[in-house]
């Protein structure tokens, strides 16, 4: 449902007559052009998966550059969709806030608190004409002692919600449909890694999109944040490809 801004979209300090802040809506569009990211909350942790577009055939995949998965704090990970350089700023902010909190309070920041602080920061950039909003959806994940695995996602408007499973980017609708089919709370991360890979493959449009690289990381109880190991990643990737081929061949 898009409308033309015509004059009320020049800065974030303006409302339109129908109550929209167009700059924020445009920021959300920037996220919609980005590769899909998925986060799944399982019984013992959270899996983060990213459809990372490969810009050029000359791109060297061995050297990890322009990754969209980040380690924020001990046991806290993040994945991002949208303008990558905006994402890097937010990740830096999240890292600083988390470190600051630990220094003042002597304990790790609770994920809810960190997510709210990032959300406030993103929101602050929707108030003034001197800055533009972040074109970023950032997903934060952690396993907490009393409450278990957690996922929060912050949107360009500055709203933040907790989720059991969420997606952002180009094919988020398709991804959400797939996520809803899963019995997340009963599934361990070992399984979810494969499902996440499958969902990314389902979301990827061979005809319209560039080639992509599957990136995954997870936060697990007692293990903290890690990028998924190469062999586990390869297995999950081939499971994903195979599941896609199976569904393709099913349709007559």
């Amino acid at each position, binding site marked *: 449902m898009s409308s033309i801004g015509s004059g009320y979209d020049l800065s974030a300090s303006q409302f339109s007559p129908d109550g929209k802040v167009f700059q924020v809506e445009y920021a959300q569009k920037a996220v919609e052009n980005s590769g899909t990211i998925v986060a799944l909350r399982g019984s013992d942790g959270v899996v983060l998966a990213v459809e990372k577009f490969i810009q050029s055939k000359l791109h060297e995949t061995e050297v990890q550059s322009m990754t969209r998965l980040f380690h924020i704090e001990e046991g806290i990970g993040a994945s991002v969709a949208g303008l990558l350089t905006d994402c890097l700023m937010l990740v830096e902010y999240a890292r600083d806030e988390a470190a600051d909190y630990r*220094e*003042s*309070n*002597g*304990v790790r920041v609770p994920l809810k608190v960190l997510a709210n602080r990032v959300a406030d920061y993103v929101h602050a950039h929707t108030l003034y004409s001197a800055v533009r909003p972040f074109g970023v959806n950032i997903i934060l994940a952690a396993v907490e002692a*009393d409450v278990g695995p957690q996922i929060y996602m912050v949107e360009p408007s500055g709203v933040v919600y907790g989720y059991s499973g969420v997606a952002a980017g180009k094919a988020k609708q398709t991804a959400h449909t797939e996520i809803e089919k899963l019995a997340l709370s009963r599934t361990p991360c070992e399984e979810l890694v494969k499902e996440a890979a499958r969902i990314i493959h389902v979301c990827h449009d061979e005809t319209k999109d560039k080639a992509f690289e599957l990136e995954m990381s997870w936060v697990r109880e007692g293990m903290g944040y890690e990028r998924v190991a190469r062999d586990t990643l390869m297995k999950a990737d081939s499971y994903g490809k195979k599941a896609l081929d199976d569904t393709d061949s099913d349709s007559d």
Partner: protein
Amino acid sequence: RVHGDCYSNMATMTSKMFLPAISAEANEFSKPDWLTEELSTGTTIAAIEFDGGVVIGADSRTTSGSYIANRVTDKLTKVTDYIYCCRSGSAADTQAVADIVNYHLNFYKMEHGDEPSVRTAASTFRNLCYNNRDSLSAGILVAGWDKRNGGQVYTVPLGGMWTRMPVAIGGSGSSYLYGYVDANYKPGMKKDECLKFIANAISLAINRDGSSGGVVRLACITKDGVERFVLTGDQIPKFYEDS
């Protein structure tokens, strides 16, 4: 009655003879110490962990040199409903720091929707005491109860270090307690044993330290909140030579 009048006259005469005259040239050196010394909680403070909570105790003397400015001071100060601190050193400094920590922890509770942990409280004390170490004279024991780790005692002495200890003592009177604590502390004591232990400790220090005295104040903090006690006069534990 005649004798009484005589004594009071003599007292007035002597005080006029020996008191330093307050003149235009009076300076720090000619004024008595109670006019120039900073208010100090000379003090004895102590805290101990037990399974289910903590017991804390303190004396009640605040001095300004040799003058006892307050003989019924409360050195056990609340920072949250479940966390208290025992203050020793400068009365002003410790009150100011405790107030700031109270402010921080209140804010923490609003933001998190939950009680702060004892560790968080101790960390907040430590940050203030360390970052302002050159201006402060504050030796603090932070003790309380939280649902994750039960009863905990943290000591934050002069330089601003912090560490958790099962039993901690502080203040000028604590010098006389190291032997008592080393000889009598055993892990696994129950609440009532802890109350006796702390009361004994404060009493022993009061008997030996001129900067400690007055009543023995105690508090017990558990999941059910805080229970406070005051031991006055005969209630204070007696030892050899307390006739």
